[in-house]
């Protein structure tokens, strides 16, 4: 009787393992991506709704971007080819300056989201292009705004590497912006880094 129970449990366990196996073999699952984005959204809304000063909120926002975002990959991607001819020191200085610039630029709009409700609605696997988690940001009395989060675990753990607001990709937008800033700085990467540091301060 006892051993019979055990074997049935083992069998059930084996069936469960079989069902789970294909998901383990694949990278991150859509469920993992959804809970990852839910965690980001939860922390983000906590910062947005807190009564702390703007500068304290921006600092927290930058820490969040560092923790949840794949900042080196994003920075390298928006800079493009010039990345390859930079020294290791320039590359890490660029990543740090870019992080502060992004945190300041997007974080300073944050008060606009104070009364918003964010609802994560689902996720879809796009293979090499990562998982896209969809969410809706709604305000009382107006149509909801679609915000999609592109995440991947190709850097080791789940990281966010792009956000699309009503279909508009931050990667594309910032690539155009960083290239224009580089041109404005006479195509000098050190001048670009200094410019981004100023904008992120």
């Amino acid at each position: 009787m006892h051993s019979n129970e055990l074997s049935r449990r083992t069998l059930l366990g084996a069936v469960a393992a079989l069902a789970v196996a294909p998901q383990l073999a694949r990278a991150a699952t859509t469920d993992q991506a959804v809970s990852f984005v839910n965690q980001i959204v939860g922390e983000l809304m906590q910062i947005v709704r807190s009564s702390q000063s703007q500068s304290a909120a921006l600092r927290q926002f930058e820490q969040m971007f560092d923790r949840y975002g794949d900042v080196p990959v994003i920075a390298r991607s928006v800079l493009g080819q010039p990345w390859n001819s930079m020294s290791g020191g320039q590359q890490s200085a660029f990543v740090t300056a870019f992080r502060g610039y992004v945190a300041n630029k997007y974080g300073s709009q944050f008060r606009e989201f104070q009364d918003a409700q964010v609802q994560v609605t689902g996720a879809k696997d796009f293979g090499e292009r990562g998982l896209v988690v969809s969410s809706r940001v709604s305000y009382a009395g107006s149509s909801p705004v679609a915000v999609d989060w592109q995440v991947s675990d190709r850097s080791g753990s789940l990281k966010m590497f792009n956000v699309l607001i009503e279909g508009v990709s931050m990667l594309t937008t910032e690539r155009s912006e960083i290239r224009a800033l580089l041109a404005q700085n006479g195509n000098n990467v050190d001048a670009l880094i200094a410019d981004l540091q100023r904008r992120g301060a």
Partner: protein
Amino acid sequence: MGVRIFSRWGGAALLLAAAACTAGPDPDDPYEATNRSIHEFNKAVDRNALRPVSDVYATAVPRPARTGVSNAVSNIGEPVAFINHTLQGDFDDAGATFFRFAVNTVFGFAGLLDVATDAGIFERETDFGETLAVWGVPPGAYLEVPFFGPSTERDLFGTAVNIGINPTTYLLGGQESLALVGAQAADILNQRQEFGAIIDALFYESADSYTAAKIAYLQNRAQATAADGISEDILEDPYAFE
């Protein structure tokens, strides 16, 4: 099915027309030089007229009144949205649009109140440019249009058709249509106010506001007609960096 057959032929004809127009040095933006000067013109219009007048309007007219006028203008546009959703074969959105128009016209005092949105039935904006996109017509070249802003060859044609198929254009008398033009102008001033922070950031804080506006317009339009609201062409793989 009928829509699909029509779309194939209509799409092919317009595709040829668009291809003939887009032959130029840069396939992505053949009219870039002209577009950029029109963009500067539009920015000057915003800086010297639209933004300051919008600020005056916002100071003089309280927000509920401004929202009411904008609601009424949106409501008058619903029949055209209904026609376009139907042409796109999107009967879900067509039904919601019809319902919104009926409810807001009857219970919202001719559309001054947007009671449908308060009940969770949001506006499903669309236009004839989107209908053409659903029918398979490619966007053609990117265009900046004086006073109108970003568009494409397809969408500019769509805008013209959209104005042409508006039933209210034919139903209203001289004085009423003048009132409508006034309300539409007030709606533009109100929108400049409501989206002020975004427009200011795009126009005056971007290092290259022309490209920023172009990306925002093209990607947003691609998303509007994409399955599940995600345009696969826009998704990139930054991990494949060379």
